[in-house]
């Protein structure tokens, strides 16, 4: 592990994973960033400095927006997408892949949220590119035998230290599992 600036510790593999890559953000990254702004600013700054294209699925955007009590609150949440230049990806393109994820998750799928299934489906859809990664703090929602943890950053929040994990699909394991279903 290399020491980072202030509240952020980065592994070299994390920087390699996100450099010049398409980085899909899980909703939990945005929620945590809002609650620990200074620490997560460093993370976002690191992503942008390394020319990562930030993206979020529309289902995650809705997860982030829900609970807003007024149009002012909603606009403040929208503002985050403009400031950090986060593109929104339509989940319409993932229908086939979500059905594949349901199959490979088997019983494990019962406890997985639909949003997490869409995130997994996104990694399946773009598994042909090694420049597409998912960033999440809930790495346990993505089974280790199907998804490779290719980089870890540690964010020092006030009450805890949170690992932010960069994930990619293990294509071989995925196809093997799908064949056996």
């Amino acid at each position, binding site marked *: 592990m290399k020491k980072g600036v202030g509240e952020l510790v980065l592994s070299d593999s994390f920087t390699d994973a996100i450099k010049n890559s398409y980085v899909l953000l899980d909703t939990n990254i945005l929620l945590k960033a809002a609650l620990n702004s200074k620490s997560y600013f460093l993370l976002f700054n690191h992503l942008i400095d390394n020319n990562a294209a930030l*993206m979020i699925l529309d289902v995650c955007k809705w997860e982030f927006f829900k609970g807003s009590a007024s149009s002012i609150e909603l606009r403040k949440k929208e503002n985050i997408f403009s400031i950090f230049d986060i593109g929104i990806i339509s989940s319409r*393109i993932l229908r086939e892949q979500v059905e594949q994820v349901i199959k490979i998750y088997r019983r494990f799928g019962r406890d997985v949220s639909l949003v997490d299934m869409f995130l997994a489906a996104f990694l399946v859809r773009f598994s042909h590119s090694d420049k597409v990664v998912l960033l999440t703090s809930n790495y346990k929602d993505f089974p280790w035998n199907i998804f490779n943890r290719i980089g870890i950053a540690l964010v020092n929040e006030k009450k805890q230290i949170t690992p932010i994990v960069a994930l990619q699909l293990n294509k071989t394991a995925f196809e093997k599992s799908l064949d056996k279903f």
Partner: protein
Amino acid sequence: MSRLKYYEGLPPKKTKRKKLNMKEAIKALEEVGKIIRKEMEYEKRSRRVGII
């Protein structure tokens, strides 16, 4: 809503990205943080009195 950028696949790659304005970014995050805290407080209260 019009300022948000929607894509049906991967967005076009930029060669040079605009640097973040630290003050503006932290302020925007903090404002949303206040909202999220209110939402969490509501969630806790509504569970206690059984609204949801």
